[in-house]
């Protein structure tokens, strides 16, 4: 029951992720929204899978996966934003389509 609810919630996040990629024109806005939505979708899906698979070896691996993604997700997005910023894309950003 709970896992189904969480799965529906993750669907909404994924749909927002798709919309977020198309709508934003500025480079950093796109970077921000897609990475945030992506991590949120990952968290909800993994927790939903944990509820669905009960208490066995599956949940152990899912917990490891969840902690790993929680640590590396934002860090990798930060690295991309940092390299984009240092290499010259100004913060106002061009509005190329």
């Amino acid at each position, binding site marked *: 029951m709970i896992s189904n609810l969480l799965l529906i919630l993750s669907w909404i996040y994924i*749909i927002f992720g798709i919309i977020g990629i198309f709508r934003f024109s500025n480079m950093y806005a796109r970077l921000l929204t897609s990475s945030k939505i992506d991590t949120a979708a990952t968290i909800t899906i993994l927790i939903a899978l944990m509820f669905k698979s009960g208490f066995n070896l599956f949940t152990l691996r899912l917990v490891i*996966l969840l902690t790993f993604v929680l640590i590396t997700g934002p860090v990798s*997005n930060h690295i991309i934003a940092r390299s*984009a910023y240092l290499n010259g894309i100004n913060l106002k950003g061009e509005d190329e389509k």
Partner: protein
Amino acid sequence: MLKITIILLIISMLTTSIRMVFRATIWDKLLALNLISAKTILLLAVYAVYKDNIFLLDLSISCGIIGFLGITLLSRFILRGGRQK
């Protein structure tokens, strides 16, 4: 329920790759790489639970590690100014 999640994940991967890979800047491509690697981790995990196959979960963990390493090294390579040295 899980089947719809798999389909949605595949659709989002397709739109990300089509929309982001053909952009001008390098960092859009890097962002696309990051998103697609995160989506593959999710896809593997959902498929593993869907088919009750435990080995796929180990695969998704290693795929996460490889994705993260790829992004850090690529962005360091770009930061250093790429190949024209």
